[in-house]
């Protein structure tokens, strides 16, 4: 196939075409070192502090949408056809400070100022979508931004007041949106991109079948979707990732389909893109979803990637296993499906061939009598990796537990069902004693590790107590809150 050897995108106002883009070149290094645009800062180089936050605009179904991303772990090669907006580009209606910037100044939202450009970008993205946010919505939008000086209060106040300084309708990105969309459409020539040096190739497929072909040609290619994990292989561990194939632009992997029996999510759907459907079909996951990383990572990371990387502490596998999710794996034109729990063989080992990729996740809809819950326990409430995560699904008929699925993350080398505890519930009456027995049975299912996130003793205790919480929160007799409210 006739391929292209340069990455093309818009950077603020300029059309950019970059040749010889190595697979592991990050957006942050590109803008800071090669373009000397120093407003975006490196605070952690692992997508956890948000000092490097920029906006990436992308056409999706013909609509141009801007989202925050962490430039430190976003690869330059993944930006083909996108519009990158950095702090340097922001301006007010009549020039000067942007409304968000003016609000941050007036409310004293900066002290040392190092995190500030990142906060401005996160608040800007929020304001564009939601100019009158609640305090909780502001907090959610800045979960991925750390400030060590202010204590956040003035930043929240600035965000709440921003709409008094200007409305999105008059914002420069709103006014220019059609023109930018037109320029982005012009960049899309439907070709595969192959760039970078021989030993550090970056490949961007033209479409999904091209992706399958690429995997046949380069069976050991690193598949990069959201780069929220692979980004760290590069920035923290300096691991080579080439050849790497960047699939974040493949619209075919981004389908979300709701049928009578299931919610089907393409492997390339990001957490953010999935959230609307998840909220609607599985309301018990709504609050949980907001606790997956921070906004920037939710905008980048994909559910498929969260599964495919095989981590025992990923946020989505336990709750998806709890719901009985099935995944589709594809190799060339052949596909196979398997229950999600079967994909995880042991720590670091998954049931995926070298040239195979995760294509979709199918989550069965809730049956009558089925009670669902999702829990995440972490040292810090938001933007933290779980000590223990759990997805429970318990079906009760006539006061008896007819079926159940209890899935845990953080309790073993893989996300795993608690089979002994499930057996202790199945066929038993719905009461506290049944759940206490199941809690006890967990000891046969898991021997968790102690590490910096949690000790084995703590993990064991909370796993047991989460069963108690599940019972209490669904039992009519409880009559009192059994969980801290998220709001």
């Amino acid at each position, binding site marked *: 196939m006739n391929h292209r050897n340069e990455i093309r995108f818009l950077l603020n106002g300029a059309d950019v075409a970059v040749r010889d883009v190595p697979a592991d070149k990050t957006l942050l290094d590109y803008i800071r070192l090669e373009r*000397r645009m*120093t*407003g975006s*800062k490196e*605070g*952690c*180089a*692992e997508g*956890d*502090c948000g000092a490097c936050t920029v906006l990436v605009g992308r056409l999706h179904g013909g609509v141009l949408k801007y989202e925050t991303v962490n430039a430190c772990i976003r690869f330059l090669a993944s930006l083909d056809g996108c519009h990158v907006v*950095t*702090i*340097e580009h*922001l301006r007010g209606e009549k020039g000067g*400070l942007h409304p968000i910037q003016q609000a*941050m*100044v007036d409310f*004293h*939202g*900066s*002290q*040392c*100022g*190092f*995190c*500030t*450009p990142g906060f*401005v970008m996160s608040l800007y993205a929020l304001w564009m979508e939601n100019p009158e946010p609640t305090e909780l919505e502001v*907090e*959610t939008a800045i*979960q991925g931004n*750390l400030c*060590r*000086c*202010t*204590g*956040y*209060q*003035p930043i*929240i106040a600035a965000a709440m007041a921003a709409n008094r300084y200007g409305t999105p309708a008059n914002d420069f990105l709103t006014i220019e949106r059609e023109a930018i969309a037109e320029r982005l459409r012009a960049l899309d020539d439907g070709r595969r991109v192959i760039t970078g040096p021989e030993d550090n190739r970056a490949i961007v497929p033209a479409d999904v079948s091209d992706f399958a072909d690429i995997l046949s040609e380069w069976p050991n290619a690193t598949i990069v979707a959201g780069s929220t994990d692979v980004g760290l292989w590069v920035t*923290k561990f300096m691991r080579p990732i080439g050849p790497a194939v960047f699939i974040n632009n493949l619209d075919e992997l981004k389908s979300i389909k709701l049928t009578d029996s299931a919610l089907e999510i393409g492997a390339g759907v990001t957490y953010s893109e999935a959230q609307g459907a998840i909220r609607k079909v599985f309301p018990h996951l709504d609050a949980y979803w907001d606790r997956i990383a921070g906004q920037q990572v939710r905008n980048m990371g994909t559910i498929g990637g969260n599964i495919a990387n095989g981590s025992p502490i990923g946020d989505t596998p336990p709750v998806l296993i709890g719901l009985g999710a099935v995944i589709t794996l594809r190799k060339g034109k052949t596909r196979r499906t398997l229950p999600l729990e079967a994909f995880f063989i042991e720590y670091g080992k998954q049931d995926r061939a070298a040239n195979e990729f995760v294509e979709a996740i199918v989550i069965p809809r809730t049956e009558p009598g089925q009670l669902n819950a999702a829990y995440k*326990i972490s*040292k*810090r*409430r*938001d933007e*933290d*990796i779980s*000590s223990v995560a759990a997805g429970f699904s318990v079906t009760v008929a006539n006061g008896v537990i007819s079926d159940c699925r209890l899935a845990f993350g953080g309790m073993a080398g893989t996300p795993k069902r608690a089979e002994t505890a499930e057996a202790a519930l199945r066929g038993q009456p719905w009461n506290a004693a049944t759940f206490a027995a199941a809690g006890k049975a967990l000891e046969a299912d898991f021997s968790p590790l102690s590490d*910096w996130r949690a000790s084995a003793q*703590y993990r064991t*205790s*909370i796993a047991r*107590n989460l069963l108690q*919480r599940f019972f209490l929160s669904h039992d009519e007799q409880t009559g*009192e*809150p*059994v*969980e*801290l409210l998220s709001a």
Partner: protein
Amino acid sequence: MKHDVITETDQTISGAVHVDRRHDSAEKHVTGRADYCDDIAEPYGTLHAYLGVSTVAHGLLKNVDLSAVLMAPGVVGVLTADDIPGHNDISPTGQKDEPVFPTEKTEFHGQPLFAVVAESRDAARRAAELAKIDYDVLPHALDPVSAQEADYPFVTAPLKLERGETGPALEAADNRLKGRMQIGGQDHMYLEGHIAFALPGEDDDVVVHCSTQHPSEAQHMVAHVLGVPSNAVTVNVRRMGGGFGGKESQMNLFAAVAAVAAKKWNRPVKIRPDRDQDMTATGKRHDFVVDYDVAFDNDGRIQAVEGNFAARCGYSSDLSGPVTDRALFHADNAYYYPNVLLRSRPMKTNTVSNTAFRGFGGPQGVVAAERMIEEIAYALGKDPLEIRKANFYGDKTDGRNLTPYHQEVEDNILPRLIKELEENSDYQARRQAILEHNAKSRIIRKGIALTPVKFGISFTATWYNQAGALIHIYNDGSIHLNHGGTEMGQGLNTKVAQVVADAFQVDFERIKITKTTTEKVPNTSATAASSGTDLNGMAALNAAEQLKERLVAFAAEHWNTEPETISFRNNMVQIGKDAVSFNDLVRQAYLARVHLSAAGFYKTPKIHWDRAAGRGRPFYYYAYGASCSEVSVDTLTGEYRVERTDILHDVGRSLNPILDKGQVEGAFIQGMGWLTTEELWWDNTGRLRTHAPSTYKIPLASDRPREFNVSLAEWSVNKERTIKRSKAVGEPPFMLGISVFEALSMAVASVADYRECPRLDAPATPERVLLAVERLRNGG
């Protein structure tokens, strides 16, 4: 000087004192146009250095093979101890126990052993991984308890504070309790990590841009390591992306490496560790293990206290001497101990050398004092606030005003402050409601605590309490301001410029704030100990007063009037019946050959300290504050949420209330983080495993109290003649976070009906909270 005159603010000029004035760099912060060290344009040919570190906690360096490092792409060379032309020593207190690079053994996991210099940072960083180092591994001790068990030495001389006789008082007391508290350390997690950028000059000269709170020390260290006089070295810092004490001594290593490399290759050299290396190779807040023994009567009044404060100092002394001293200075917090004996145990450990961090040991002392209060309250079945009130310092009349270091407390405002906060926060009614809630609620328990802080202001190293400033007035009337303090977000430059604007009664905008540089003000102290404004504001005022005197003398002569008739007002100068613009006066003065530049100086009066005797007046004054926090705890998981916090804090007569409020809020959240989610966790090999924001969790916006009411005690005026009668604000409010910790403790105590002090260790992670709940439920 007029600094002790309490005047109403004249708001005819912009940026007057005592008014809210935004941070001078606010617009640059929000646009990304504020330059930090890494944003300075690099000259062509700039090289990049990176540190190679040890992978064992304690071991002899048997063989260090850097051949693969040297062969790596882009590498220009390596630096080891052999390349140091001067002294291989960067110990900030002259104890010669901290080499740039060790030569014989490594004493902590992650200790820098060499630096590699390459054409790019990426090349240097990759090459640093290629060293082959053989160690003869030695046994290690990571914490102060195992260090004491292994007979490790002190890193610096311990301190003893003693007053009265504790032995008989402890024996005779109605009640006596002994306990141990573990207090975790804390990483600074400034958003901008360490960085230094050295540019070689002619002769011995080198200029170092560095993110440092202490440019003079960086200068002196670079000179010492290069073996050149201090006058050859210039250190500059325009601003830091946060400091919090982490850049008071810890930048020495980076400044020295950059400078040595720059001179060796005669090219600019920059060094910037990644976040993981920043967190593993540089020091943090000291962890403490405190053993206390407290005697009290049946009303909860303390009769005697003995305390042993063992600290994880790390492998070298760094600032551990003054840090552990300050822990003892604050082991009384706000309470009078009739008989007291306090000892520090600054333990050497095989961990990174711990350093300054906001509060500088003080918070560890204060939290231990509050633990003893809690113990007494639970033992007697009383509200801890009642015990606090019973033990507050009194005054001369009741004789209860002497600290363990024999300084009299002369400015105690806590009774009024606590009363106001207790009322404004509706403490009593809320506590009652919480007790009722807890009696009924099975799973969600609540707690509330109102805790005070009293914090001593001054460097305990008396000679540090000096500062300089330099003001030029150019002949167009524009003013150039420079002082020895550094800007790390606290708004120091804004406040000092307000002082100067006020002195000349000219608009703030007329004053150019400039980078801190050792070329303009020599021999400065660290911007630390909350002293920045107190010291530099006074030095700048001194310079301004000198200039005003010259201008007044000139005007009196030129306009033929008496000096008393001359006043500065609203960018004008009233001279007898004439009024001229400030610019005109300056222009005329210049033409008449008046010297329009002045160096100001200040040293804090009244203070003295005899460490050997444990007596003196180490502190010029105290700053006070109090906070009341309410929490909810999920007793199934240990998760918690801060529902509400009310703060009333004393900054004297504030120079800039909105900036001070920002300091109070930020310090509270940082203090809360220290005691809740920020956990340093070393594995058995001595490797720190919480070394980046992915694993080390500082508070987020969603962690702050759901309701957060912060006020300054507007009625407070510093009794001492400080700058405009304000008080220092950087550190004292950090300890307000203790109210969250104690509220968590109350919620936990509720599961055993408050019969037992939960003895939570810090940080009270959800794990520690749950394990304490389970311990208490199982009968302790």
